[in-house]
């Protein structure tokens, strides 16, 4: 177990490409931290700097209180699992697992098998390898060569090679990206269990936000070399700090609607009736190309401050649902008034309907752009007009721009 501290760490490649920009990150004892972001966001570079495979251009990197900027990879007591497994093809599984230990032998060399010290060391290496193989369930594979293993088995051996050294920190560089979806899910669970069992500090890099969400104690979202947000998966999902994080985390991607906030006195009076929190702030409406959406009064800290500004409204797909026939009729009769002050309607035409058995994704083309809704399966036809009801109680507002900051929630 160990603490990993990155203080203003930057990496500039010789060509001038800035891979990581003044990154500050503290990773606690036994924490499982996942660095996530699109390719080229600097997450792998960050991991490789912790490993010592890349030098930090500036900043300070420390493991367990010791600054390791100038320390060779082998002396940092970290182990890494590579995306391509990086098993030595000429060695058996046993050879691969004992490879890191051979280097650390005190009584190695050609003559070691003839000396008592050498033999007992050999025996302890074998015992260690056997124990790790047992943990990972790869004992029957010990005498095989990597070429004779399946992807999942190779991945286990790669993890075993990291475990065998009992390092302070485990580094994973997209270790599951070469596996098929089903195996990936299984390995994810196993890694999570392994982390609980070993209690070691683990730093994991992936571009797959779902993998990040499922594995992490804490997610670190990166984009163009900068840290965007670090927090628990739930925190990052529920309170994204900017539009990039909001769009990157969650499947399908959050819906974004450009528009403008205006204070609506009618909604205000209704939300005031609902409770004290709502009464404290004015409720507003969000005017967009396809109509007006009522914003819940108590969601944002100070909605009057942002009134009149161009913003982007973000709605998760699971907060959109198809209005039932009766509901749609009611809406049609009432005009533009939604059935609930926190909800609003969006009208459009169904562009695509994707079925997943237990749920479905409906893509709606509306005057305000394209929306995706995730809802229980219903019978719809592509090309049909459709009314969706948006639950805005968990909606977000962002400044304009790819990384536009989130408007503070209350």
């Amino acid at each position, binding site marked *: 177990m160990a603490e990993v501290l990155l203080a203003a760490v930057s990496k500039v490649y010789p060509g001038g490409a800035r891979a990581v920009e003044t990154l500050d990150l503290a990773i606690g004892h036994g924490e499982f931290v996942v660095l996530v972001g699109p390719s080229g966001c600097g997450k792998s570079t960050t991991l490789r700097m912790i490993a010592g495979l890349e030098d930090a251009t500036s900043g300070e990197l420390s493991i367990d209180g010791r600054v390791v900027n100038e320390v060779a990879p082998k002396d940092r007591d970290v182990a890494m699992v590579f995306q391509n497994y990086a098993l030595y093809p*000429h060695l058996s599984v046993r050879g691969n697992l004992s490879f890191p230990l051979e280097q650390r032998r005190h009584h190695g060399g050609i003559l070691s098998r003839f000396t008592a010290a050498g033999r007992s060391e050999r025996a302890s290496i074998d015992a260690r390898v056997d124990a790790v193989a047992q943990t990972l369930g790869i004992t029957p594979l010990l005498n095989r060569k990597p070429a004779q293993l399946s992807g999942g088995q190779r991945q286990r051996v790669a993890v075993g090679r990291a475990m065998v050294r009992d390092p302070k920190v485990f580094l994973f560089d997209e270790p599951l990206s070469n596996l098929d979806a089903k195996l990936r899910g299984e390995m994810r669970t196993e890694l999570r269990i392994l982390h609980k069992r070993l209690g070691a500090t683990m730093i994991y890099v992936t571009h797959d936000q779902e993998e990040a969400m499922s594995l992490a104690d804490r997610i670190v979202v990166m984009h163009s070399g900068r840290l965007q947000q670090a927090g628990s998966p739930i925190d990052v999902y529920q309170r994204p700090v900017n539009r990039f994080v909001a769009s990157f985390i969650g499947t399908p991607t959050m819906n974004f609607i450009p528009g403008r906030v205006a204070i609506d006195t009618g909604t205000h009076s209704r939300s005031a009736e609902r409770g004290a929190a709502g009464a404290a702030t004015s409720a507003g409406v969000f005017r967009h190309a396809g109509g007006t959406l009522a914003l819940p009064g108590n969601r944002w800290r100070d909605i009057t401050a942002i009134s009149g500004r161009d913003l982007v409204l973000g709605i998760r797909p699971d907060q959109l649902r198809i209005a039932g026939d009766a509901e749609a009729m009611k809406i049609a009769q009432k005009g533009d008034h939604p059935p609930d002050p926190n909800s609003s309607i969006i009208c459009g035409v169904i562009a695509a309907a994707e079925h997943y058995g237990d749920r479905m994704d409906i893509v709606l083309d509306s005057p305000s752009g394209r929306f995706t809704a995730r809802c229980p399966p219903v019978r719809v036809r592509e090309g049909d007009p459709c009314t969706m009801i948006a639950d805005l109680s968990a909606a977000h507002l962002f400044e304009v721009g790819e990384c536009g900051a989130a408007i503070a929630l209350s």
Partner: protein
Amino acid sequence: MAFLLLALGATISLFPLWWMTVTSLQSASEAGAAVTGAKGLSLWPHEAQVDNYPEALAQMGSLRWQGFLDALANSTVVASLVVTGTVLSSSLVAFAFARLRFRARGLLFTLMLATMMLPGQVVLIPLFLLFRYLGWVDTLLPLIVPAFFGSAFFIFMYRQFMAQIPEALFEAARMDGYGPIGLWWHVALPLSRPVTATTAVFTFIWCWNDFLGPLIYLQSESQMTLAVALNGFRSQYGGLDDVHLLMAASIVTMIPCLLIFFAAQRHFVEGLSRGGVKG
């Protein structure tokens, strides 16, 4: 059709070998007659004279059997050390060129390749003077020591091969605590087995059959290698009477090359990573 062409080619290539074998089994008069043209070439020995073989080997050199055994020992020592030296030094240098970053790497590599363009005959006299200065003339050292300084062609071959080994393997080994020499010995060299096989076979055959080097640097009979000893045998017995003995001795000399070639053949074609790295 392709098969017929191949068969024809093979027959033409193998005919001299067959002729050698036949001649080596003939009696002195029969072989002599065929060489002078007094009698046509026979494709089958009338009566296999297996005794030609021990006789030929025994007659090599001035002392019965001693000449052959000395030459065999010398050739074996030289060839095995030259193979070891070439493989170790060439792969080590190639590893540096392929995997380490250092200043003027490209320039040095070009310079190294340029030495391949230099004809061997050009450096013959300077080398001889150098070895004479070192007092190595009439020892096996001039034949062995240069091999430990790499061979441009094999360095080139190793480098091309090692450049293809996935970087992750080296990174993994670095994290496991291996330095540059460890990376070379534990990762690069074992994975370059096909190149090692090729290098070993070609170096062995070249060295075993090398005639000029030993002829120049070696003087006393006890230092001779087989290729040169065979030549001594020829001037002694290369008269038309004893062509059958020459052929017998030549065939014995060839055997190790053939064995080594067939033994190493299957490694030539072996692929690089064999599944250790996916993607």
